[in-house]
């Protein structure tokens, strides 16, 4: 314990001193940690941050449902469902493979360009759709891992009780699968919270964009530190909750003695 404390103090002091005594430190401190600019830009950025939170909440709700549907489709057995499985596989491959920022930018600036009546032109809308498409691909894979972790005997037992395949999925497989994947699921949502900043690239003024505006107005990067603080305030509670859930899960499994 004492060793840990001492080594931590030594390491952080060394890093701190190296930074503070570097030749460029005064100009970096002025450019990134200007208290006056921090105070001046914080209220605007905090107001813009509300948009990030809104996008996050709506996208999260949609992703939970949409991703489960994809995971279930991908888990359908038998040759008849091959085309559906194939579509689900292509979907998860494509949207996990393309950088999120590209999906967001292309959708938000591309789809409204089609000028189709009845299709929203809102950049926020299409940027959120982009986030939903990308994150659903990740979350679907998490769900699928959960579904596959449920022992086949569970399905056999349910079927032998007379439950249909759909009922088996609904009442036996999915409930167990979802419970097992809650920690990794929350992990993806921490990522989603951060990535709401990518909406900025489609035009809406959310926290990152507001920081960029303040940055360019002052030739100073401190507004980004404001944004980082706001994002941390949002993500750290979720991060800690996730860690706690994982630990609890491990304790329970250890207590029950089954894997």
């Amino acid at each position: 314990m004492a060793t840990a404390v001492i080594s931590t103090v030594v390491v952080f002091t060394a890093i701190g001193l190296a930074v503070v005594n570097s030749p460029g430190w005064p100009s970096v401190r002025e450019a990134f940690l200007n208290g006056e600019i921090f105070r001046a830009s914080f209220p605007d950025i905090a107001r813009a941050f509300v948009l990030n939170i809104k996008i996050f909440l709506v996208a999260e709700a949609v992703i939970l449902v949409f991703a489960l549907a994809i995971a279930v489709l991908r888990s359908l057995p038998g040759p008849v469902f091959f085309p559906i499985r194939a579509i689900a596989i292509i979907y998860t491959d494509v949207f996990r493979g393309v950088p999120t920022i590209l999906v967001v930018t292309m959708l938000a600036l591309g789809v409204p360009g089609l000028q189709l009546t009845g299709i929203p032109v809102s950049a926020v809308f299409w940027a959120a759709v982009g986030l939903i498409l990308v994150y659903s691909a990740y979350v679907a894979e998490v769900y699928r891992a959960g579904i596959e972790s449920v022992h086949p005997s569970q399905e056999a037992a349910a079927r032998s009780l007379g439950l249909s395949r759909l009922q088996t999925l609904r009442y036996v497989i999915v409930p167990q699968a979802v419970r097992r994947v809650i920690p990794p699921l929350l992990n993806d949502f921490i990522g989603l919270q951060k990535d709401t900043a990518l909406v900025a690239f489609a035009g809406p003024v959310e926290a990152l964009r507001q920081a960029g505006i303040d940055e360019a107005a002052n030739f100073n990067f401190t507004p980004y530190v404001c944004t980082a603080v706001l994002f941390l305030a949002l993500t750290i509670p979720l991060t800690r909750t996730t860690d706690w859930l994982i630990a609890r899960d491990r304790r329970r499994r250890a207590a029950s003695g089954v894997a």
Partner: protein
Amino acid sequence: MRTRAVAMALVTVLAAAACGSSKGTTASPAGSAGSNPCAKGNLTLVTPGQLTIGTDNPAFDPYFQGPTGHEWKGQFNHDPYNDQGFEDATAYAVAEQLGFQKSDVNWVAVPFNNSYKPGPKNFDFYLAQVSYSPQRAQGADLSDSYYDVQQAVVALQGTPIANVTTLAGLKSYRFGTQIGTTSYDVIKSVIQPTQSTQVYDTLNAALQALKNKQIDGLVVDFPTAYYMANVQLSNGTVVGILPSADSGSKEHFSMVLQKGSPLTQCVNGALSALRADGTLAQIQDRWLNQAAHAPNLQ
């Protein structure tokens, strides 16, 4: 005011230095430079003996013109080595005024927000339609004006905003602009629109949003607005020119230099010499469309 006085004093010195070099004196540069801090031999430069100028990539019309080349590629891009376009010609004129041959000038592509980041710079000065503000001058050295600029609204012909003739008439529309521009300040403080303003990374994205009708009007500097409305958009129009965000003073473009750079006073000296002998006005006449007119919105 003090800077201005110093700059004016420098003009004479510079003019003398320029004449000296054009006569092809063979004396060592250090010898002829003497104690003048702005003599070519005394300048502190990124690459000794060469002037390195930064600008954005893409480099847009009408500030940069002519063919593409070097790193500057693509349909609407222009090679700064061309010495064509308003800012390009201004940069070369300043270089010449400082005693550099055209072949001594090197260009580097610098994203706007890298132009004022802390730490050593990879350019001697940077020009890419950067507007002066006192806040910005705290983060980097900003030269005197090389162009007094006004902001204007671009829209699509046939859309309701295209018929607006007053400043108050603009209020109910949705505007967009590029990030990091004073155009944003003008939207916020002069137009004060009721709908949220959209801010894009690039002018190209902003233009696409205008075509998509995600925004009704795009606010950019007037030369850019004129170019967009008449070249880049097939059905574009300049709705009008907006009053300055700070009613007390004219908005102007400045060159960006390292904070505290000794080169700043030399660039200012060169600019006032170019202003005094009419070169700046000639460059403006040649590269910015003088026929370009749009109503002033009040």
